[in-house]
């Protein structure tokens, strides 16, 4: 039964909409549209992920002079000077704290070119570097801030720092890239052979982690120490990580560094083979940052040997790392860029396997040594205690005065595991006299693999985190490369993440759905019966 009077207003609306739109479906659509627009509007703009970035209040284009060189100079003085310096010699205020150092435009030695080794880059090369930046360095991508015209203007200006640009001898045209050889097992295999035969492994290492025998003694034209690239992380290749970029690098070399050009040693196919091989060393797709570590439940004991095949079954989580720059002494140039974590648990223990790259396994130097070298270290950080509600945590860099952290440490010197507690990095770490953590590490071809494990519960309820299945535990990681002078507060760090041992699926999951299905089916059955009965009744009457 429908009450007509009560709907008069809406009925009018319907009639009104029919004045404009004769078609039933169209007026229906209009009504629905109006409803949803009015009703749902606030939610349309509630998306926090989608933020509009306004790069600056005043775009450069409004204040720049017309003359290209003068405009280039103004852009340079605003955007580039802090690293590349007033005079373009790469010694701006930021220069000391970056590794690699900013380019000197006075020396005009450019690393990432498409031109033969020791020659100047093309304008397009410079344009590409300014637009895309150099991954893994302080050079950002300027494409969102500078227009194409502005990028050309600044190129014009940086050329004024060196007279090399006027000498024709240093100019060269871009390398011609031959017919590509698509990647395949055969190509990669041929490339690998060539890679070894050419001596690439001397610097880049047997598995390409930049850990070859010469890797720690290489120097650039300034006399600064330089590391060969770790070829297993193509997202950090300065000149681009795809096969075509690698092809270019092999055939142009990197000016001012020991990286030669192989243009006279490799033909087109061989260049592609080596490029395909190098590309194959990095994962496709590149790893994505994890957030929650879910240990795998096993029946067996947790293996302390990192090479035990049981670890292969555990899923991997990948976490990028940064230098600790919140407290003195700070680490601006870490060498450990990321860490991979696997975890296993059983009813008694939980274990973690940490995997990260380091060019050398270092032992602490004697106190009298000229260049200080420290032991390599890694640590897993937990809060000492879980806070009620689980939101509040100790400060992520080694806790704070109120809330302490518990660290499971491993050091390369002596392959030792030890536990510490800390209440803030400035207050230092305290070694625990008794440790329940067991583990061991291996170093092979520029990579560490370390396992640490502990029983889920311990007797020290004050200083040790107590693990229970189904709870979220904050977890963070530290790594120190002793060869890079990393010790104490100088370390690579991660923010807090979570680890969760998932409980078994409860039985109710398999009981409730069938009950619901049977119930709904029953309702349907009754409904049909009722309707049929009604019809019979109405037709017979």
């Amino acid at each position, binding site marked *: 039964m429908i009450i007509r009077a009560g709907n008069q207003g809406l009925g009018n609306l319907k009639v009104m909409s029919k004045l404009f739109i004769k078609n*039933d479906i169209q007026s229906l659509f209009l009504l629905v549209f109006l*409803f949803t627009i009015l009703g749902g509007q606030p939610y349309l703009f509630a998306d926090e992920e989608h933020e509009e970035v306004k790069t600056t209040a005043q775009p450069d284009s409004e204040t720049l002079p017309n003359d290209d060189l003068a405009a280039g100079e103004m852009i340079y003085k605003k955007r580039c000077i802090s690293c590349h310096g007033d005079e373009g010699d790469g010694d701006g205020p930021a220069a000391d704290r970056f590794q690699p150092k900013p380019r000197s435009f006075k020396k005009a030695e450019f690393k990432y070119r498409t031109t033969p080794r020791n020659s100047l880059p093309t304008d397009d090369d410079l344009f590409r570097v300014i637009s895309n930046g150099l991954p893994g360095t302080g050079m950002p991508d300027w494409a969102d801030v500078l227009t194409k015209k502005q990028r050309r203007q600044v190129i014009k200006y940086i050329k004024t720092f060196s007279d090399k640009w006027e000498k024709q001898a240093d100019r060269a045209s871009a390398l011609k890239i031959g017919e590509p050889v698509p990647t395949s097992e055969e190509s990669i295999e041929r490339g690998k052979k060539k890679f070894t035969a050419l001596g690439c492994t001397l610097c880049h290492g047997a598995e390409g982690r930049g850990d070859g025998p010469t890797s720690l003694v290489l120097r650039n034209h300034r006399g600064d120490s330089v590391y060969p690239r770790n070829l297993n992380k193509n997202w950090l290749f300065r000149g681009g990580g795809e096969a075509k970029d690698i092809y270019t690098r092999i055939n142009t070399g990197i000016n001012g560094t020991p990286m030669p050009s192989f243009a006279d040693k490799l033909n087109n196919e061989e260049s592609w083979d080596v490029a395909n091989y190098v590309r194959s060393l990095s994962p496709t797709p590149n790893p994505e940052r994890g957030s929650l570590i879910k240990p795998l439940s096993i029946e067996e004991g947790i293996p302390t040997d990192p090479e035990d095949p049981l670890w292969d079954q555990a899923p991997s989580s990948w976490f990028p790392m940064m230098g600790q720059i919140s407290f003195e002494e700070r680490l601006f140039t870490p060498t450990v860029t990321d860490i991979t974590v696997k975890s296993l648990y059983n009813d008694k223990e939980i274990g973690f396997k940490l995997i990260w790259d380091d060019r050398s396994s270092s032992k602490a130097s004697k106190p009298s040594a000229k260049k200080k070298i420290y032991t390599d270290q890694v640590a897993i950080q937990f809060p000492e205690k879980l806070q009620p509600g689980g939101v509040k945590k100790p*400060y992520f860099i080694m806790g704070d005065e109120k809330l302490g952290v518990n660290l499971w440490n491993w050091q390369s010197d002596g392959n030792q595991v030890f536990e510490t507690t800390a209440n803030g990095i400035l207050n230092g770490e305290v070694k625990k006299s008794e440790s329940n953590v067991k583990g061991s590490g291996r170093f092979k071809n520029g990579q560490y693999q370390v396992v640490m494990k502990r029983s889920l519960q311990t007797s020290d309820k004050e200083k040790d985190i107590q693990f229970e299945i189904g709870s979220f535990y904050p977890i963070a990681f530290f790594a120190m490369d002793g060869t890079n002078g990393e010790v104490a507060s100088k370390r690579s760090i991660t923010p807090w993440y979570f680890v969760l041992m998932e409980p078994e699926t409860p039985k109710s999951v398999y009981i*409730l759905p069938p009950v619901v299905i049977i119930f709904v089916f029953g309702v349907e059955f009754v409904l049909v019966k009722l309707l049929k009965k009604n019809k019979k009744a109405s037709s017979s009457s």
Partner: protein
Amino acid sequence: MKLPLIAKAFALELGFYLLLKLGMPLITSPLPSSVIFMYMTLVTISILLYVSIFEDDFGNFYIPIVDFIRGDDNESGLRKLSRIAVFILIPLFFGFRSYQSVLPNFNPPFPQRVIHPAPPGSAAGFTNPFGDDEANHEQYIEEGREVFYKNCVFCHGDKLDGKGFFAHALNVKPANFADATTISMLMESFVFWRIKTGGIGLPEESTPWDSAMPRWELILSEEERWKVIMFLYDYTGWKPRTWELEGDE
């Protein structure tokens, strides 16, 4: 061709769902399922309102539904088949939904983080000692630039956009000073307090334990901190919020 009202209503319902689910991601980021559900509820309610305004229309709308459910002894094979299919699919759908709802779903404790918290009393009353010194203004900005590129650039970035060299490793992303929602809507004294006491000095609603912002009073002098603030505003072109401006609003 004149479609029956129920077919139109069904087509509209489906069309809206596809628009929200597949169409919207083309224009903006995908809508969360809760928003889609809310929209679809509105769509359904408005369709039901529309069809129930006049008695005739409502009859047209619901009689075919009743007929379909009831079935007929001499109905066609296809109709019978679709009827059975619907009767099987509906309980399965509810069964699946109940499975989803009882399946344990683990979400880490996630605080609603306040980005610009109310500052404590101690944060008020900081004034820039160089603010009135017009003669040396450029010099202070230059010194502030040096402080920024030696200390802040690693997280807040060359472009002051919060995308520094280390930013990708952090969970609480460094502030983007170029964006209109950071320093442009804050007062200088607030910015000074944030720099002075850092992430660890934040109140609890701003999750101090997750912020990598150093407590700069341990590293930089008070003068350096004021100069870097002057540089931030100069580089981005924003003006700090002031009491006078508040009065105008």
